[in-house]
């Protein structure tokens, strides 16, 4: 157990470091001039005072050699300091910490919805004996991944909020305001989950133990839920590890459509103002989410399938 934890921790630290480094390479090493970007964000044709320029360059340490910049920033980041935002001057960390709860609430609700919708579709498609119904249900996921998220959101707004007046169109107070954004965010994820689970169920369905269960007289729903679903759930669990990060990233669009505050709006504003420190902080946040969720998923594997021990989880992961 101790060795397992140590190894997991080392892996987590590696992913975080690598994400930080990739973000640094993208944001600071690409042939661009961060200071020019920072000064330019005010508007077109801003006059750039050379003195102001030099001052900014020195303040962000951009006059140092690249490796010194990198190491300084890495040391700061290791202590949880991601610098200050160029457009607001506030510390990046407190901006992210402030925006995070709203988005986690949205992404969490969306994840639950996506699991329910996705698993429901796949189970129903496997359970039904009517070919036309199965075809119909299996045609839904490919449709779901082909629909732009922002379009779904706008369509829901149009019908549910404006036409029928059922739910509030914008804002972020209360459960009622959470319904439409969560559905919008959940649909593409639900489609992917349904696709993976339906395929996995179809594979499991041809296993000999399903035939055995049937021969022993277990009902169709009993086989599906008691024998097939649990074995087919492993690929879905792996998928969830990737999905949570995508949900948080997807909040960029959903929070823009529904005018909610959160990480998504912060991202949109940061990219719009070309606020490099904030964007770097957000990339590292995505890596943190990835690491935490995957650790949780790894701990759940043995609960779903006792054949998977911790040692084997590691072997699969690496």
């Amino acid at each position, binding site marked *: 157990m101790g060795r397992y934890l140590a190894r997991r921790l080392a892996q987590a630290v590696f*992913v975080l470091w*690598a*994400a930080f480094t*990739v*973000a640094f390479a*993208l*944001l600071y090493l*690409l042939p*661009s001039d961060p200071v020019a*970007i920072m000064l330019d964000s005010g508007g077109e044709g801003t006059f750039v005072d050379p003195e102001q320029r030099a001052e900014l360059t020195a303040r962000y340490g951009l006059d140092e050699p690249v490796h010194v910049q990198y190491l300084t920033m890495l040391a700061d980041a290791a202590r949880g300091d991601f610098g200050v935002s160029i457009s607001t001057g506030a510390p990046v960390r407190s901006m992210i910490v402030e925006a995070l709860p709203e988005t986690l609430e949205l992404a969490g609700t969306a994840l639950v919805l996506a699991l329910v919708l996705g698993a429901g579709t796949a189970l129903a498609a496997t359970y039904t*004996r009517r070919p036309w119904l199965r*075809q119909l249900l299996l*045609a839904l996921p*490919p*449709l779901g*991944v*082909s*629909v*732009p*998220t*922002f*379009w779904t959101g*706008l*369509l829901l*707004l*149009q019908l549910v909020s*404006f036409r029928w007046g059922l739910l509030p169109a914008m804002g972020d107070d209360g459960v009622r305001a959470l319904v439409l954004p969560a559905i919008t965010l959940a649909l593409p994820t639900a489609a992917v989950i349904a696709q993976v689970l339906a395929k996995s169920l*179809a594979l499991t*369905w*041809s296993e000999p133990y*399903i*035939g055995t269960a*049937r021969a022993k007289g277990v009902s169709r729903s009993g086989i599906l839920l008691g024998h097939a679903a649990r074995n087919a759930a492993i690929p879905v669990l792996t998928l969830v590890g*990737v999905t949570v*990060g*995508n949900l*948080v*990233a*997807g909040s*960029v*669009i959903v929070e*823009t*459509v529904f005018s909610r505050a959160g990480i998504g709006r912060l*991202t*949109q504003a*940061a*990219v*719009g103002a*070309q*606020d*490099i420190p904030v*964007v*770097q902080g*957000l*990339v590292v946040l*995505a*890596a943190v989410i*990835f690491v935490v969720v995957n650790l949780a998923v790894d701990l759940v594997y043995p609960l779903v399938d006792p054949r998977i021990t911790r040692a084997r989880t590691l072997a699969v992961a690496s």
Partner: protein
Amino acid sequence: MTELITPVAPAPPGGPAEPVPAAERRDRGLVRRLLRPGLVVAIAVVSVALLWAFVPGWFTGHDPITGVPAQNLRPPGADHWFGTDHLGRDLFARVVHGSALSLQAALIAVLIGLLAGSTIGLLSGFAGGAVDDVLMRVVDVLLAIPGLLLSLAVVTVLGFGTVNVAVAVGVASVATFARVMRGEVLRVRQATYIEAAFASGVRWTGVLRRHVLPNSAGPVVVLAALEFGQAILAVSALSFLGFGAAPPAPEWGSLISEGRNHLATSWWLTTLPGLVVIAVVLATSRISRALGGDGSTTW
């Protein structure tokens, strides 16, 4: 009984009638697969979208940029198929003319992903050892960061505009291409003909170019077709956020975004361009499935 146990097994095609030579049977199967209604519709949709991009004048006589202010916010009708926007511009004309920018951006994105990704995958899979380890760890990290966020980070540095958005979407797809390419190269490298080529003294560049690349390109091409649809979605999402084409240039994502201000009154401004995007994306994914040799799709 067997049928109950494996309900997903497809019925044997044709039936056990008179024996047909294998080649002929394969041809017939191919023809039948190509004539599946879904695939025919998909090819038609993509062809029309491409024609829109190259010869928009064939499809609409209206001007996409300057409108008739007196005719603003008209619902869809015989004269304006998709209605008009707040400046009296014909929405159908804007969608038709917008396909050039949208498809071009998606194409750039896929080409970047395809070229960079398959180069990395090819090197990684062929060289093996430490090169493979390092490259694949980088790819793993890129896969851990959500694609949309990665694209946004690239846009932050490159600035706004359709081409920059296209590059950003392409960069985000490099890792996926690299993964698939590497997997294929690893499979091909085991083959006896690779060993034979090395044994007969072909240099490694020759083996790579003449034997490994042609034999491992298939799944990557299928992925490229699939990614084309996803790139259309990603490009339109970034345009929707306001980082793409500057107004008044028409682009599918920004068209939908412009309709936001008239959501309560003019449903057509967001709904119809969105339906066009969905149709094209669905069509590309159907074609990609056909390219992948998936015969199990019955439509």
